């Protein structure tokens, strides 16, 4: 079709336009700005390539403006680029004598863009992907029927094949066989230890502050380390440097506000965002039942162009979550956690050398507290100090990144048996090379040297990524080795478990490790129809796996296991003028096996069921997500349906009252004993499937010259009773979110 159009256009030009154009030169001008701050970009490069191969170029001036005064009529391939930004490309038809304007907004490329897009233009694509990587733009988040008009990264992540949460409350995310503490979550480079809110729609990342988010479900490059499963790297945008702007939304789940603007016009800006939940106060009146969850997040960013070649930013974020994840009517499960992170970053872009230097320092903090009816109170705290320096050398189409990093962690936790403290220091460096072998083939080798002071000492972790483009198809593959020294210990059996005690791997033992293998194909089947398939295999070693004992009190014992996670992800994306849709299916398997023929135990007092191999509780075998966003005149209808097959759990044979060995014969008859759960083989049962439909309808009108958006929606529209917890001791079923109607209003200025 495209070829036909091109032939037709060329024919028209040749037949009708060429005689007129001959001798009549066109003019092309425009302005290049930062997409977020709207600040003009100086020295941006604009290249025009004609169909005959002739190329001409220009650069923007101090106001971001460029001009081509004598452009022959015809079709041109346009490329606008600037260091630190994602290049913009388009095809442009210029008529004879035409005075054409092209304004371009470039998105910051804080880190490298690793994907190659399919097709000649991105159109409305807000999501790009290659092996293991999904890049998400804020527009994609807005298409989800999130209750309230505060789109959030969390909702989107849960639509990706291979990504799921244990429940719609609790804030724990599993990605392709990895446990929550094996995911590295960064915001502007700052790690957040527990960034997902207690109600699963929300995280610390509202769409309002996001420039883009790179989600590596595996195969991430040497820039990232210290985690073995995945990376979620959120880059925030800078505040508006031209004018004051903001928004406010009011909804039962969440109320949000955003304010941004220039401190020094064109040079210095601020961005503030705050959200606070309302559901705990509104639910008793609106729903007639208690939803005792309270959460919120506050974000602030200061950004300044110090000179034309350097910039500085300071970022701060705080989150809080608390609630009672009641696992039955009689068993409370009080939980609370607070994140805080602060970062400073300096970027230097010399005009005479193709080197970008970036230095940053971050502080990250998490404190958490947990108390249940029949377990001792638990507390944990982790503080981390991170320092990074990065040198990026631009070598034509290729690029070399050299980085150095240092980390220091301090841990303190009390699991009910006394406070423990520990600390550890890590350091190292990495090399990432992006080598553009041909215009369609890119190879990206890398290596990370990481010193784990507690575990194996110096570790060399090679990484490799290949990308090949053939017409409308992109083939990519990624491979890498990963190790992790700090670990989050939690009890996997309990779906309500939000408590994670961060600590360092046992001294002188091998640290948890993984090797990733990923291959993907993505292609455009037809205009507006993209399809991708991706296979992955993760070889897991020295995994720390916590299990309960059979006693009622939740004593934890930790096993070291190996295992594998493997699967296939399929994505079908549809895009038309009135409809965008997404259909994703993930087939996955996670299997753990005990080391050296050892056996996993899952009880305490007497000989326990043992299994040399088992599927852990985050083995969700099938996952299907369908998204649709329809535009009907002034209305937009968003639908999202998710299906996930049941995850493993451990069945029981029953209960008995055990008496301690050595009890005198005379006491055998009278001793009441201690109640013990007789567990069957670990994780041989499967919980019921999970599925849910969310719907929302939006309409945006003008109010006082500004957009005012109204939304009505239903969470769990058909009232599916998805199981949250089965209480072994009382036999009680506790369900996830019921049908929840919601309305929301948002005003943007």
């Amino acid at each position, binding site marked *: 079709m495209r070829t036909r159009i091109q032939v037709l256009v060329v024919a028209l030009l040749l037949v009708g336009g060429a005689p007129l154009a001959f001798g009549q030169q066109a003019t092309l001008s425009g302005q290049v700005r930062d997409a977020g701050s709207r600040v003009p970009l100086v020295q941006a490069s604009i290249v025009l390539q004609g169909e005959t191969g002739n190329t001409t170029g220009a650069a923007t001036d101090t106001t971001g403006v460029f001009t081509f005064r004598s452009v022959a009529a015809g079709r041109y391939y346009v490329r606008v680029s600037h260091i630190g930004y994602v290049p913009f490309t388009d095809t442009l038809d210029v008529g004879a004598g035409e005075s054409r304007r092209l304004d371009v907004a470039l998105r910051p490329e804080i880190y490298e863009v690793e994907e190659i897009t399919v097709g000649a233009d991105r159109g409305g694509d807000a999501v790009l992907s290659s092996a293991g990587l999904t890049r998400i733009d804020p527009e994609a988040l807005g298409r989800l029927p999130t209750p309230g008009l505060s789109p959030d990264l969390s909702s989107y992540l849960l639509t990706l094949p291979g990504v799921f949460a244990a429940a719609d409350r609790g804030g724990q995310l599993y990605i392709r066989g990895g446990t929550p503490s094996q995911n590295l979550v960064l915001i502007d480079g700052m790690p957040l230890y527990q960034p997902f809110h207690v109600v699963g729609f929300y995280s610390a990342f509202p769409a309002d502050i996001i420039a883009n988010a790179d989600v590596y479900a595996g195969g991430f490059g040497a820039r990232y380390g210290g985690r073995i499963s995945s990376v979620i790297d959120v880059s925030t945008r800078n505040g508006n440097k031209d004018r004051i702007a903001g928004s406010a939304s009011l909804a039962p789940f969440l109320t949000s506000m955003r304010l941004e603007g220039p401190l020094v016009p064109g040079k210095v800006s601020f961005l503030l965002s705050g959200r606070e939940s309302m559901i705990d106060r509104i639910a008793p009146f609106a729903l007639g039942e208690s939803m005792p969850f309270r959460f919120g997040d506050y974000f602030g960013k200061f950004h300044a162009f110090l000179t034309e070649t350097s910039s500085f930013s300071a970022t701060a974020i705080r989150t809080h979550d608390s609630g009672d994840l009641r696992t039955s009517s009689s068993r409370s499960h009080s939980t609370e956690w607070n994140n805080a992170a602060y970062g400073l970053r300096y970027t230097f872009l010399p005009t005479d050398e193709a080197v970008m230097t970036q230095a940053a320092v971050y502080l990250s903090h998490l404190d958490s507290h947990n108390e249940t009816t029949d377990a001792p109170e638990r507390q944990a705290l982790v503080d981390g100090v991170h320092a990074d320096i990065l040198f990026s050398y631009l070598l034509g189409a290729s690029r070399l990144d050299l980085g150095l990093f240092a980390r220091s962690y301090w841990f303190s936790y009390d699991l009910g048996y006394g406070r423990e403290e520990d600390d550890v220091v890590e350091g190292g460096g990495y090399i990432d090379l992006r080598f553009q072998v041909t215009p369609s083939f890119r190879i990206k080798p890398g290596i990370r040297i990481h010193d784990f002071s507690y575990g194996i000492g110096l570790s060399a972790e090679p990484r490799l990524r290949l990308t090949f483009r053939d017409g409308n198809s992109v083939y990519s593959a990624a491979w890498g080795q990963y190790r992790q020294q700090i670990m989050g210990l939690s009890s996997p059996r309990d779906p309500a478990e939000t408590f994670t005690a961060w600590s360092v791997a046992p001294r002188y033992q091998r640290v948890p490790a993984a090797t990733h293998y990923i291959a993907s194909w993505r292609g455009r089947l037809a205009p507006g129809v993209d399809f991708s398939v991706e296979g992955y295999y993760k070889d897991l070693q020295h995994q720390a796996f916590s299990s309960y004992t059979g006693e009622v009190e939740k004593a934890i014992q930790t096993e070291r296991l190996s295992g594998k996670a493997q699967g296939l992800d399929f994505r079908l994306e549809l895009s038309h003028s009135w409809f965008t849709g997404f259909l994703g299916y993930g087939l996955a398997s996670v299997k753990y096996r005990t080391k050296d023929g050892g056996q996993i135990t899952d009880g305490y007092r007497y000989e*326990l069921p043992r299994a040399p191999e088992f599927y852990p509780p985050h083995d969700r075998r099938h996952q299907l997500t369908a998204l649709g966003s329809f535009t009907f005149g002034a209305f937009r209808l968003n639908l999202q349906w998710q299906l996930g097959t049941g995850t493993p759990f451990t069945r029981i044979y029953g209960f008995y009252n055990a008496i301690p060995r050595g009890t005198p*014969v005379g006491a055998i008859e009278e001793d009441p004993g201690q109640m013990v759960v*007789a567990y069957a083989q670990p994780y041989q049962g499967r919980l019921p499937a999970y599925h849910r439909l969310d719907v929302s309808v939006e309409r945006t009108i003008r109010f006082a010259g500004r957009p005012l958006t109204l939304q009505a929606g239903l969470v769990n529209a058909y009232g*599916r009773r998805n199981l949250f917890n089965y209480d*072994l001791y009382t036999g009680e079923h506790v369900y996830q979110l019921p049908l929840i109607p919601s309305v929301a209003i948002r005003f943007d200025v």
Partner: protein
Amino acid sequence: MRWLLIHIAVVATLVLTGCETQVDPMAGGGPAYYVYGTLNTDSLVQTIRVEALRETAYGPPSPERPEVILSDVTTGESQACMSRPETPAYQCPAPRVVAGHFYRMQIRGERGESRVDVQVPQVSQVIIKDVFTPGTSAVLQPLQWNDTGTRPISVVVTYVTIRQGHLPDTTVVDYLPFVRGASGLREVTLDYPRDLNFYRGRVGLDPKDMTVILKEILFSTTTQGSEWERPQGTTNVENGYGFVGSQVGMTIQIPIRSEMVQRLGFQPVQ
């Protein structure tokens, strides 16, 4: 296309309405009973706790009373154990458990069958050396025994009977130290008190008001079966939970000689 839509609608309807939201936590089959007790050669009646696994966490023990049979595999004799009312205990009466014999306990009931096999250990072989040296102020009594395959626990006892005129006899039991070591022929020394005043002090009477007679000196051990070597948290109940141990008691009388009695200040036995 129409058929495709119909199929999608049918599948969606089945999914939305047919999925189970309840969970059944009970695994079929599996271990049947919890059993706890000790086969003791010193006891005329063996008391064993037997409890059927129940499906609820809290509440009284299961009312089920399975059949419990204790068999002496060595002799082929079996006996039915009797359920004790209102408790989860059973009592297995005579014949007395014999050291060195194999025993099998079978529990049969609604949940299936659980079984325990136990070998009661052999009695320790004890060799007593007479090394009493006349003219010394102390009495040393080396003992040796062979505990291969068994585990004596630390009990060594002497008995002294004290007669106090019209009062009944009083027995003083004195526990002497025992040091555990590796299996094999080992030795312990009994260190008796130097004179009679020690015993008078223990009773708290004036020496002139009492007559003290050294009646016997006994060496006693309890030997546990090899099943006690299993770590806590493991069971020896097949298709069940719990623990059934065995133990053998052994007592040896140490010969009393006249010079030993006189040296200690006791009256000679008439």
